[in-house]
C-alpha cells in the first residue's frame, strides 16, 4: 500500500469544514479562561481572605492533572449537579439540553483559567512597583491605576505567553472527540476509518494544525511588535 497523496488533498478539503469548530472552542475557552484568570490573579495578588486559598487550590489542582480529566469530570459530573439542583428548585432546565460542545467550553475555560491566572500573575508582578506608585501619586484610584497603567503594561509583557497558551488550547481542543464533538481531529478519525486511509487523513490534520499554529505565532509576533513600540529604546 502506498501513500496516497491525492487523498491527503481530498482530506484537507473535507477537514476545512470543521476548522471553525476547532477555532471556536479555542477562542471561547481562551477568552473565558482569560476572564477567570484575571479574577483569580487579582484574588491572589490582593490575598482576598478565604478566596485566596480556594484560588490557590484550584490552580494547583488544574495544573497537576491532565486536561482530559477536567473534561471527563465536567462531562459526567456537571449534569449530576445540575439535575439534582433542578429537581430541588423545580427548574424546568435539564442537563440534556446542554449541547456537547458546551461541556468543552466550560471545561476548557476552567482549565485555561488556572494556567492563565499564573500568566496574568507573572505579568502583574513584572510591572515595576513604581508604575503603580506614580499612578497613585497623580491621584488615580486603584481601579484607574490598574486599568490604565498596570494592566496594559502587563498585557504587553505576557503576550508571548498568551500566544503559547492559545496554541496549547488549540492542540488541547483535540480532546473533544471524547465527548463526541466533531472538530478537526474527530473529523480526520471519521475520514480515516471510512476510507481506510489513516496515515493520509492524519497527515492532512497535522498540516492544518501546524498551519494554524504558525499563523497564531505570526499574528502574535506582529501584535507584539506593535504593542511594544514603547520599549524600543533609543537614548539611554
Amino acid at each position, binding site marked *: 500500500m502506498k501513500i496516497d497523496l491525492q487523498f491527503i488533498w481530498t482530506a484537507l478539503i473535507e477537514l476545512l469544514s470543521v476548522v471553525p469548530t476547532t477555532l471556536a472552542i479555542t477562542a471561547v475557552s481562551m477568552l473565558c479562561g482569560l476572564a477567570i484568570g484575571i479574577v483569580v490573579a487579582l484574588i491572589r495578588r490582593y490575598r482576598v481572605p478565604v478566596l485566596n486559598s480556594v484560588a490557590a487550590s484550584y490552580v494547583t489542582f488544574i495544573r497537576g492533572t491532565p486536561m482530559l480529566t477536567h473534561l471527563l469530570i465536567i462531562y459526567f459530573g456537571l449534569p449530576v449537579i445540575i439535575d439534582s439542583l433542578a429537581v430541588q428548585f423545580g427548574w424546568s432546565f435539564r442537563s440534556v439540553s446542554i449541547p456537547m460542545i458546551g461541556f468543552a467550553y466550560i471545561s476548557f475555560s476552567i482549565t485555561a483559567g488556572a494556567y492563565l491566572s499564573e500568566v496574568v500573575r507573572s505579568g502583574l508582578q513584572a510591572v*515595576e512597583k*513604581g*508604575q503603580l*506608585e*506614580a*499612578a*497613585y*501619586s*497623580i*491621584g*488615580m*484610584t486603584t481601579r*484607574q491605576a490598574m486599568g*490604565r*497603567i498596570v494592566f*496594559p*503594561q502587563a498585557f*504587553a509583557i505576557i503576550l508571548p505567553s498568551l500566544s503559547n497558551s492559545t496554541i496549547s488550547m488549540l492542540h488541547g481542543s483535540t480532546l473533544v472527540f471524547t465527548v463526541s464533538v466533531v472538530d478537526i481531529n474527530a473529523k480526520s478519525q471519521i475520514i480515516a476509518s471510512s476510507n481506510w486511509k489513516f496515515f493520509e487523513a492524519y497527515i492532512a490534520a497535522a498540516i492544518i494544525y501546524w498551519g494554524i499554529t504558525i499563523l497564531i505565532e505570526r499574528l502574535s509576533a506582529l501584535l507584539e511588535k506593535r504593542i511594544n*513600540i*514603547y*520599549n*524600543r*529604546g*533609543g*537614548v*539611554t
Partner: protein
Amino acid sequence: MIKLTQIKKSYGRHQVLKGIDLSVEQGEVVAILGPSGSGKTTLLRCMNYLERPSEGEITIDGFTVNCKRPSKSDIHALRKKSAMVFQQYNLFRHKTALENVMEGLVIVQKVPKEQARKQSIELLEKVGLGNKLDSYPSQLSGGQQQRVGIARALALNPKVILFDEPTSSLDPELVGEVLAVIRKIAKEGITMIIVTHEMGFAQEVAGHVIFIDDGTIVESGTPDELFNSPKEERTKQFLKRFTPDGTYSI
C-alpha cells in the same frame, strides 16, 4: 498649609519614623537632608500615602487625615492635593511624554482632552522638552525623563510637589538640567518639599532646611543657620562629609 503631627512609621519592630512634627507654609521650599536610612524618603512618601504611617496626622491645605484608620476616600483626597517626583522617574512606560503629562489631567481631573493637551504641551515646553512630545520614556535620557516627571507633577496644579531625591539616579552630567528646572519652578512660588543629597542646591533653593537622622528631626532652620552654624553634633558630622569634595560650600 502642610502640617504633620507626630508621624510614626514602623516596619515590624523597626521604627523608621519616631514622631515627626513639621509645618510648611504656602510657597515655601523645604529641603530635607539626612544620611541614607534616616527615614527622609519614608517621610516624604508618607505625605503622599505611598507609605502608610502607623500613627500621626497629616494636614494638607485644610484637609486632615488621621493615620490611625484613614478611609480609602481620605487617602485618595489627600493624594490629590500633592504630586510626586520620583527618584526613578517612574514615567508610565507605555505612554509618550505628552500622554504622561496629560494622563492625570484627563483621567483624574477630567479636563477635556484638547485643553489638557494644550496645557501639557505648554508644560513640556517649559521644562525644555517641547520637541520630545511623542517620545516614549525608553527613548529619553534620565534627565529628560525626570523633566517629564516634573511636568507631570506640575500639570496637576497640586498644593505641594514632593521631590524624592530627583537627581540621585542621574549621571552627573545630567543633574544640572534637572536642577535648573526645579530652580525655575521654585521661583514661581509653588510649595515644594525636596529630599536631596545636593547640598549646594538645597542651600541655594530652599527657604527652610531640615536635617533628619534616625527617624527624628535633629535640627531645622534657614539654610544659613543649618549649613553655616549647625548646633547639633550629628548635623556637623553629617555636613563635614560633604565639605571636602566641594559638593557643599560655605
